[in-house]
């Protein structure tokens, strides 16, 4: 590798790191993932979850509203429950415009690996489009698909597959105190 291409790679890495840092403050998981494991993942972000009784807290979003919706096998259609959850998420996001979100799409383990990446993307996109329809700006949202790589619970049973077919809205940014 030439010095120039090395320099380019370093620059590319820096640029990626810059893009990937959430705008301000923290990433609040709950998606069963460990964030973006990679070379640009050195920093630990922090932020306050707040009191779940405070309707504008991240804790409220995660615990009371629910940060995830579920899907049936091979489907990316929202259920009645899923739409209710997303309506409440949209209200919270409207009231807390300082937060950005990452929507993670996931599949259960009963499919092939790459197809499940596509399926997870389709699920994440369904959630994003629904939130856009509720008035949330597309600029605040990103999507990622983990396919079947990050199950919430790994057991060879229907009850696990049912909770693994999900899209999780991960809140980042916002207040730091």
């Amino acid at each position, binding site marked *: *590798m030439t010095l120039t291409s090395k320099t380019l*790679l370093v620059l*590319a890495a820096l640029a*990626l790191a810059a893009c*990937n840092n959430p705008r301000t403050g923290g990433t609040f998981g709950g998606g*069963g*993932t*460990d*964030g*973006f*494991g*990679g*070379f*640009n*993942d050195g920093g630990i972000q922090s932020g306050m979850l707040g009191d779940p009784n405070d309707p504008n807290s991240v804790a409220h979003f995660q615990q009371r509203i629910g940060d995830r919706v579920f899907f049936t096998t*091979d489907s*990316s259609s929202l259920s009645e429950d899923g739409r209710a959850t997303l309506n409440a998420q949209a209200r919270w996001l409207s009231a807390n415009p300082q937060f950005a979100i990452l929507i993670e799409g996931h599949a259960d*383990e*009963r*499919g*092939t*690996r*790459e*197809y499940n*990446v*596509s*399926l997870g*993307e*389709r699920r994440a*996109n*369904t959630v994003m*489009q629904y939130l856009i329809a509720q008035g949330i700006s597309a600029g605040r949202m990103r999507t*990622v*698909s*983990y*396919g079947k*790589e*990050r*199950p*919430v*619970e*790994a*057991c*060879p049973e229907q009850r696990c597959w049912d909770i693994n077919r999900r899209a999780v809205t991960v809140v980042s940014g916002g207040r730091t105190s």
Partner: protein
Amino acid sequence: MTRYFLLLSILLLAMPGTILPAQAQPLRLQITEGVIEPMPFAVPAFVPENSAGSQFADALARVVAANLTNTGLFREVPREAHIARVTSFDAGVSFADWRAINVQALITGAVEVSGNRMSVKFRLFDVLSGQQMGQGMQFAGSTDNWRRMAHKVSDAIYSRITGEGGYFDSRVVFISESGPRGNRTKRLAIMDQDGENVQMLTDGRALVIAPRVAPAGDRAVYTSYETGSPRVALMNLATGQRQLVGDIPGAMTFSPRFAPDGRSLVLSAARGGNTDLYRLDLGSGQMLQLTASSSIATSPSFSPDGRFITFESDRSGTSQIYIMPASGGEARRISFGQGRYSTPVWSPRGDLIAFTKSHAGRFHIGVMRTDGSEERLLTASFLDEGPTWAPNGRVIMFTRETAGGDPALFSVDITGRNLRRVPTPGAASDPAWGPLQP
């Protein structure tokens, strides 16, 4: 040279084979659909031609024996049963002693070591006819590569007896897995086809999945989450240098595959709930969109002549297998059985497509002809997926996961016989079989 001798021996064998009665058939295994009786063979410890050679004399023979046995086509007559002792590579063979213990193929070898260089010789004998089969052969190289020399010997023997190309001197890139299932650590890794010489290629910090090896064996492509989102990564296997390629802004890119000339990739890009196939020229970085339907098109595979791409799509409602021209255009569906069909992989001979099928809660590895006919399921389990072809198109390796268990690599031959677990140091998935090494 090698090829010439091989061809010659095959021709010589093929001719009398049609006239002679079964009893007098020369040493020849036809690999067919039917159950075959494994051919009994013997491989005594190689003869050390100097004292330094003795440390490899037995080991070389053991690797050859293991390779042949693992095909399911051969059965070793154990050392304890041997009557004759081979103490000189060039001395005459006492065929009667080998016939007496029902050996049909006898392999003798010799090894000489000086410093870190070694030379390995072998001969193959047809015990029933009392004749040498093909000429003796010699390989020379570094002692570090002693297993590879045993694999070369095995490939030559396998080829002479079956008339098929070998696959022992080849490597497999795969995903080595560790840690809790909800947050797996996955590393790109490479090993010999028999599970030896495992080497980690990535450090596990970024999730990596589904690698493929370049046709020349010099590079690998895979999907990496190092930026936080799926991206296609290209690695030079000799230097370990890697780079991300084929960026499509706003899209997740994954499922990369090399074209047969190694100069371009076909890959998937997902955005807006839709996954399409693109072709990436690795030299210029130019991208060409190959599919444009409002559905999923992924897991592509080139035909060996580079003219077509097979892939899976759910455009009909469920995942099925399609074939289209390599430059895009109309796709023809070839899978019509019950269930979902995924991960089509074109065989190196061009005649078959291997796939994953799921139906009624079970997963299968199967093969079909390129027009979708003669579908044959080779395996069945809780979760089998992701077939990859041995360089000779006779064996398929894949990922098997038992209910609640860790994933492991398995192989099966295309007749559905000889299902075997491929040893790996820990949990493993997504094998990608590389070419026969030069």
